[in-house]
């Protein structure tokens, strides 16, 4: 039964009209009810805490070799997750590894958002030649797997976390730009844009005060999806050997180190922990993104 106040219509027995709720409030309410998204959010919060903690303290020095016997099994006293093939504590490395993943994920998403939104807005609004050039660039970019683009860029720029971020961002901005361009194209046809232009507003103001806020929903949702994509790509990077230089721990690199012992028949734990960490983190971001998208999808208004 409805818990909101429903004003009677004029006719007794007529259909009842429900009160209109604002899009944002309605969306937040629905998001709160989505338990999967909430669980994801809680996990991400915990992860952030662990990450921040690892900046100051970990059980052992993650890069120190020989703190425990090599290939120590989980449950060895003092090393709940075991140790790797060089005798480094896996728990500490796992904690530190979150830094790279989160940093790459969030910063890349931020860059992609700024780049993609900026370019998308301009292209969508100005159209014409700029649009044609954009289409050409996009076609070329899409002709090659983004991972390859990122790898080549990274090799060009040299090792380092910053360069990983730049490389991945450069290979990922197209989707956001395309999305924003599409949104801009449709929003610019609406009446209030024409009204603003007739009122003499400058292009910049129109773009940022009118078009951008209206496209914000899908932009936020898309950004939430860029984070796991970037983390995934950086994991692939590390896995293939292009990642952060040793001895900095990072999940992809740890997984890569864990593969050879696995293939040789040793225990899988060196691979297992970072694999689980990566998978759960990626799942969390995806679920949260799904929750956001469902919550703000105007077609699902009740």
């Amino acid at each position, binding site marked *: 039964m409805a818990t909101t106040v429903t004003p009677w219509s004029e*006719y*007794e027995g*007529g259909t009842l009209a429900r009160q209109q709720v604002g899009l944002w409030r309605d969306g937040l309410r629905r998001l709160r009810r989505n338990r999967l998204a909430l669980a994801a959010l809680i996990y991400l919060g915990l992860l952030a805490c662990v990450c921040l903690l690892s900046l100051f303290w970990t059980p052992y020095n993650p890069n120190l070799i020989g703190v425990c016997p090599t290939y120590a099994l989980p449950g060895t006293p003092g090393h709940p997750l075991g140790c790797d093939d060089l005798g480094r504590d896996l728990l500490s490395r796992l904690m530190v590894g979150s830094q790279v993943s989160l940093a790459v994920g969030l910063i890349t998403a931020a860059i992609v958002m700024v780049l993609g939104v900026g370019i998308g807005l301009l292209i969508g609004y100005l159209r014409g030649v700029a649009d044609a050039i954009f289409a050409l660039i996009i076609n070329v970019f899409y002709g090659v797997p983004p991972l390859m683009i990122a790898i080549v860029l990274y090799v060009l720029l040299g090792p380092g976390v910053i360069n990983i971020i730049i490389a991945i961002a450069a290979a990922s901005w197209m989707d956001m730009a395309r999305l924003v361009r599409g949104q801009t194209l449709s929003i610019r046809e609406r009446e209030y844009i024409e009204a603003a232009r007739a009122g003499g507003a400058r292009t910049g103001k129109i773009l940022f005060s009118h078009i951008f806020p209206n496209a914000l929903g899908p932009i936020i949702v898309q950004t939430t999806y860029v984070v796991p994509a970037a983390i995934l790509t950086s994991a692939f990077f590390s896995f293939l050997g292009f990642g952060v230089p040793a001895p900095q721990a990072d999940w992809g690199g740890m997984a890569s180190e864990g593969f050879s012992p696995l293939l040789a028949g040793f225990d899988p734990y060196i691979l297992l922990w970072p694999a689980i960490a990566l998978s759960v983190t990626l799942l969390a971001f995806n679920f949260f993104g799904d929750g956001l998208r469902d919550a703000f999808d105007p077609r699902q208004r009740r």
Partner: protein
Amino acid sequence: MAGSMNEPVLEVRELSTSFFTDDGEVKAVRDVSFDLAEGGTLGIVGESGCGKSVTALSILGLVPRPGRVVGGEILFRGRDLLSIDREELRQIRGRDIAMIFQDPLSSLNPVHRIGAQIEEAMRAHDKVAPRDVRPRGLDLLRQVHVPDAARRVRNYPHQFSGGMRQRVMIAMGLSNRPEILIADEPTTALDVTVQAQILQLLRDLNRDLGTSIILITHNLGVVAGLCSRVVVMYAGEIVEQGSTEQIFDAPQHPYTWALLRSLPRVDADRHERLRSIEGLPPDLIAPPTGCKFNPRCPFRLERCFSEAPELKPVGDGQVAACWVTMKRAYAEMGAGSLLDTRAGAASGVRPPAVPLPLAITGGSQTAGPEPLERE
């Protein structure tokens, strides 16, 4: 044509169908009963949402989730369609009872050629021999007056006009020569001139092939053109039933009366206002107590708020569910010269004071329009 002329080919008894939604049980169809004579034409009329389409879908077991038939019997050739197993029902669909729908563009599969779709209807059953399927398909298209049938049989639905598409649907429906054809608003999506052609086509098919037809529509003019008997539905229930002449010449239920009045007439005085029925159809989850039409009925009495009327005979073969009936309304309430048709306007009866659970933003609880002075 087997069977005696007196026995109806379809008997619907106390059919009830509900939709079980998150907001509650929507009682879409309640205790609906009617017969379809062999070779007869029956029209089911009512506003959108009155349950006429759901009734038709219930006959063939096509009610979509979360809907379900919850009671009643549907007797076809002596078998209750609601209690036979799925495979038997599947065989009856399309072979013995066929149904065509309102919007032929969305009702035809857009990626299959129409010839294939018609042939598919025949191949699904064993009434037509496999080698006859293709020639019969062409034949059907010609019967429904699709020109250049041999070439058009390979076209896709989007390559046809609206009227042609509906003809294709009719051809598809008749392909297995069913005993009954149910047509759910077949002309609503079409232009007026095309409407007339389709109705003529249905009339001819009924006459030549002897197919019994159930026609569902909200348009009374369409009913007059095709059907010999009419069922009027409101809020999921039958409020009146009778022959077409009876319904049009002497409607007994105020709703039927109001419907007929609301038809715009070419010969009406230009300054006359269009006479629509005030108000909206009721909420089917929590309908009004008593007669469901009471919030909109000009002739309502006190009794109408507390007791739901049952269908009672009001003529030879005509039944209506009303405590007042138009006979009385003409005699006692001046229905013949009534201009103000708002709820309670003719009888002067207001709804009783009822404690309402929620606050209102102004207006009294028993608000109702003041009856105007009759002119």
